[in-house]
């Protein structure tokens, strides 16, 4: 399987259950054993552990939110910025995150585990942003969320990509939403890239929709 994400791109990876979408992300972040070559910014990261990959600037928001339920909203955000040394930059990023998610301000002392599913997903995204990542990877962010929350989540992602040039790689089963927000898309089929192209083009292609996306 071969897949490339350019700097400043917003790539979506689609495909049915078991196509290997999650495993692909986990291979990049180093949470599964891997073979072959994984290159980030000209450097091979195939041998690096998850903590080292994270410190290189790859933020991975895993499936099922992955916030620390026992820690407060504020502590979750602080952890997002854990590898960073630039205090002023971190403070600026707290403000940036609060601009995208204004409700975080009033909830900052609340345990993350008491947030709703949608809020936890937003917090997971906010925490990933606190790392000021150069590549943001999200695994099934729409899972278990209502349509309105999903739409606003993808709107935020689109805005981050458009306004701040953030490189995003999102794995999604909700093809409709993902194709609308992303620039490029890959369709996975049991461990191989079956189809790749412009998201807008893929969305309009009748045969693609029928055979790969099921709508």
């Amino acid at each position, binding site marked *: 399987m071969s897949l490339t994400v350019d700097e400043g791109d917003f790539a979506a990876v689609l495909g049915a259950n078991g196509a290997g979408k999650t495993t692909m992300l986990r291979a990049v972040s180093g949470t599964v054993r891997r073979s072959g070559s994984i290159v980030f910014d000209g450097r091979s990261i195939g041998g690096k552990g998850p903590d080292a990959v994270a410190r290189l600037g790859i933020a991975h928001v895993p499936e099922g939110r992955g916030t620390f339920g*026992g*820690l407060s909203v504020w502590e979750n955000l602080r952890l997002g910025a854990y590898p960073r040394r630039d205090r002023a930059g971190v403070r600026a990023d707290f403000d940036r995150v609060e601009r995208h998610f204004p409700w975080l301000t009033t909830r900052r002392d609340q345990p993350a585990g008491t947030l709703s599913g949608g809020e936890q997903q937003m917090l997971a995204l906010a*925490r990933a942003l606190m790392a000021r990542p150069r590549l943001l990877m999200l695994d099934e962010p729409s899972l278990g969320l209502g349509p309105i929350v999903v739409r606003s989540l993808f709107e935020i992602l689109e805005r981050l990509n458009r306004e701040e040039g953030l490189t995003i790689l999102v794995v999604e089963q909700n093809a409709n939403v993902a194709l609308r927000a992303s620039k490029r898309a890959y369709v996975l089929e049991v461990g191989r890239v079956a189809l790749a192209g412009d998201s807008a083009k893929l969305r309009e292609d009748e045969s693609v929709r029928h055979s790969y996306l099921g709508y």
Partner: protein
Amino acid sequence: MVLAFTFSQLAQQVVSGLASGGIYGSLALAIVLIYRSTRVVNFAQGEMATFTTFVAWSLMHHMSYWPAFALTLLIAFGSGVALERIVIRPVERGPVLPVVIITIGLLILVNGLSSWIWGSDVKSFPSAFSTRPIRVAGVAFSIQDLGIIGVSLGAVALLTLFFRFTKVGLAMRAVALNPAESELVGVRVGRMLALGWGLAAALGALSGMMVAPSVFLEPNMMLSVLLYAFAAAVLGGLESPIGAVVGGLVLGVVLNLAGTYIGFVGSELRLAVGLAVILAVLLVRPAGLFGRAVARKV
């Protein structure tokens, strides 16, 4: 059973119970620090404490009390970190049982090492505080008891501040909650675990140096203290640092009052009371006073 009961005696017994409780609590806290991040009970915690107390004893031949005290804490911290890196790390990510067996092996090894280096004869250990009593509101308290309470509570307060307000403290709490997730935000999990062992070893050294003046220093000094610390940790819920300390204080007071007011307990049955506490907590409230009951998927 005689009910000779005066307020002043009760107050004295409570305070000296709190002093031993502070010692149990410090060691219990050491056990909890390691347990909550790795699910492993470190059976060698008491022997590590004894060993470092011997180190303090040797140092005190060359310098005065407090410098030796501080240096011992540093040495304990360093050896805790080293022990985790060398002995525990190879089995860290595997099942819990091998790790537990390794800590039991460590218990025997460290105990043997203490006897080998310092011999098994009983040594007197200086106290930082005078044993002179002071009178507060007509009741005489020993300065040593008050000092021990102060030192243990001070250590706990420092640790609480560290966990709550520093970045590394926050990372250590995150690792305790979810190591896999912590890695994804860039926390070096192995380092945090080693740091936990270091802090635990330093707390153990603290409890060893506090208890040594009253029980005398010898290689098996911490054996009974370790049992009380287990009882305190279980009482507090094994995962809660505050619980461990409160558990220790409660246990110290209960043991002391039982020894004083229940005729047949005396000093001989104190250990049995400690075991009874463990048993009772496990039967009645397995999650402890401060723990949360967790449903695990099977």
